[in-house]
């Protein structure tokens, strides 16, 4: 395995039990006792249940699940804001659980940074000083920190608000400050716990666009938590779905929508706009194609349907960016794909 492909973050067999004596109930957990039974019989909460997840570098990994599924608990293990009951976490081949206080602080200062659902801004500091906070903790000198903070404030579109206090800003603006603060430290790993969930739908879409734009040039390893499928599908190159503390499916957006692993996920994907999410690539029949018309494989169903309808014979060849044929598609397959799989 080349270094390029090595996961940036590797989580293996991670368990987290909240309660008086977590270690004491691990036997029960390992032999498969359910979350409900464990709570009823021992009063312990099983928050994470045998999670193994490899998170690739320089991509957006979304972790999705309903409230209480363990998302916040999981993301806080990556920078060890929460100690696991069992299991391992590796970042760039380093065992996070073996780090001492000082190493852990350095990890948090230089390698990871975080954006929070409730923003977590320092109310007594101005926008400029909030964005510079991570740099100050890193020990960057004041003038330099101020310069870099100004750059990121500009990048998130908050120029002119440097001297405002967080309490004077709207939610969307506060979260831009949160994002700028996280980006300013130059950390390679960005941890985002429902970062946009507290925002109005329109502002939220805005923030997603800002994030995607920035990611196009920054290529950070972003771990993005959400309970919202649309958001997950929009942002996630890889998506892991969490239920009751366990990962029940991982894959690309297409995988999740086209092949939901169980009823829980099927329920999730039932209401989404399939036309926008599903692309030709995931419905084509790979291999040679007789059709002369071509459609890029990245085209969404929504866009492809009128095209296919207009083509004689209602069939086309899916091609990649360079125009190489990848497989064949036809109108009836496309229409089928619009329907929810029962």
């Amino acid at each position, binding site marked *: 395995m080349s270094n390029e492909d090595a996961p940036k973050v590797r989580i293996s067999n991670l368990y987290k039990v909240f309660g008086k004596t977590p270690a004491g109930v691990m036997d029960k957990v390992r032999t498969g006792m359910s979350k409900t039974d464990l709570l009823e019989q021992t009063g312990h909460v099983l928050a994470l249940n045998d999670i193994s997840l490899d998170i690739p570098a320089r991509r957006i990994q979304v972790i999705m699940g309903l409230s209480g599924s363990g998302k916040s608990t999981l993301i806080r293990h990556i*920078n060890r*804001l929460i100690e696991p009951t069992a299991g391992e976490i590796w970042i760039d081949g380093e065992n996070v659980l073996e780090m001492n206080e000082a190493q852990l*602080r*350095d*990890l*948090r*200062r*230089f390698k*990871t*940074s*975080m954006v*929070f659902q*409730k*923003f*977590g*801004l*320092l*109310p*007594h500091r101005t926008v400029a000083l909030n964005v510079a*906070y*991570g740099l100050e*903790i*890193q020990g960057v000198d004041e003038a330099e920190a101020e310069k870099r903070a100004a750059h990121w404030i500009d990048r998130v579109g908050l120029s002119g608000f440097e001297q405002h*206090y*967080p*309490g*004077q*800003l*709207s939610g969307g603006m506060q979260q831009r400050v949160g994002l700028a*603060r996280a980006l300013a*430290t130059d950390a390679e790993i960005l*941890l985002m716990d429902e970062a946009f969930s507290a925002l109005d739908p329109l502002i939220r879409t805005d923030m997603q666009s800002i994030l995607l734009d920035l990611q196009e040039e920054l290529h950070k390893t972003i771990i993005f938590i959400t309970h919202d499928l649309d958001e997950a599908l929009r942002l996630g190159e890889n998506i892991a779905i969490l239920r009751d503390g366990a990962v029940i499916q991982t894959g690309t957006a297409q995988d999740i929508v086209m092949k939901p692993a169980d009823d829980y996920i099927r329920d999730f994907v039932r209401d989404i706009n399939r036309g926008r999410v599903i692309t030709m690539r995931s419905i084509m029949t790979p291999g040679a194609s007789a059709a002369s018309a071509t459609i890029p494989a990245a085209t969404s169903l929504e866009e492809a349907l009128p095209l296919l309808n207009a083509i004689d014979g209602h069939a086309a060849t899916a091609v990649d960016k360079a125009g190489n044929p990848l497989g064949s598609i036809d109108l009836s397959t496309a229409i089928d794909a619009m329907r929810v799989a029962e």
Partner: protein
Amino acid sequence: MEWLAEFPSLDRRELSNMKKGIDGAFREFSRAYGEGLEAFFYPLLKFMVWFEKLLQATPWPIILVVVAGLSWLGSRSVKVTVGAVIAFIAIGIFGMWEDTMSTLAIISVATIICIAVGIPIGILMARSDRLQGLITPVLDVMQTIPSFVYLIPVVMLLGIGKVPGLLAVCIYAMPPIVRLTNLGIRLVDRDVLEAATAFGASPKQKLWGVQVPLALPNIFAGVNQTIMMALSMVVVASMIGVQGLGVPVLRAISNQYLALGVMNGLAIVALAIIFDRVSQTFGKRLQAHRKGHH
């Protein structure tokens, strides 16, 4: 059935022996350590004497200017500043200047001591639940026990004078600042603190960069209350030899001088109001960032 009618207490001889025993032991203790303690507090005494002399020796116009300056710095309010100056002028006209300077001296020193000791204790308390469990009942006792009760051992140990008076004032006035420092730090938003941790802040950076600044309004409310409580102890402290506005009040009580008592009482009230307004407006200004919420 006699034992039901009257509570079965220890008999009188046993009780008096017990009390005598305790008194004797404490007298022994004060004989052995009293001088050492006095020596320990000697620098404090020197400082208090010096400070009182300084205030009394300073020409009154300078004091008025300083009062006006401090009021303005604290409150940034013309009303408060002018009010403070007028109150001091009235105090001077009615012949209470010297006693007021003595009272100011002891209140200032007591407040400084309460801040210097109380804030660190409050910080430690906020960082450990066990310490909080230990100190809270002590604070309760300090605040509720009648001051005359702890005046007895203080006087037995240190005699009559400024230092025992100062101690009595401090015992009474310290609890609010400890409590409010502890409370203020504990009330700091957990999400904000978590954010600081997530960015790699050390415990020290969190304390001074996040917790203390965010607790400042509460800490300041504590300082304000401490000053108020110190002022309310002025009369009691004068019973054990502290100079100041309390002395004429005491004299007024024993001789039934109505005017003397009321005048000096009003002077104490005036000081209290000035301290309160100045420190409250200052505390409010510390929270400037909380204004303008959307």
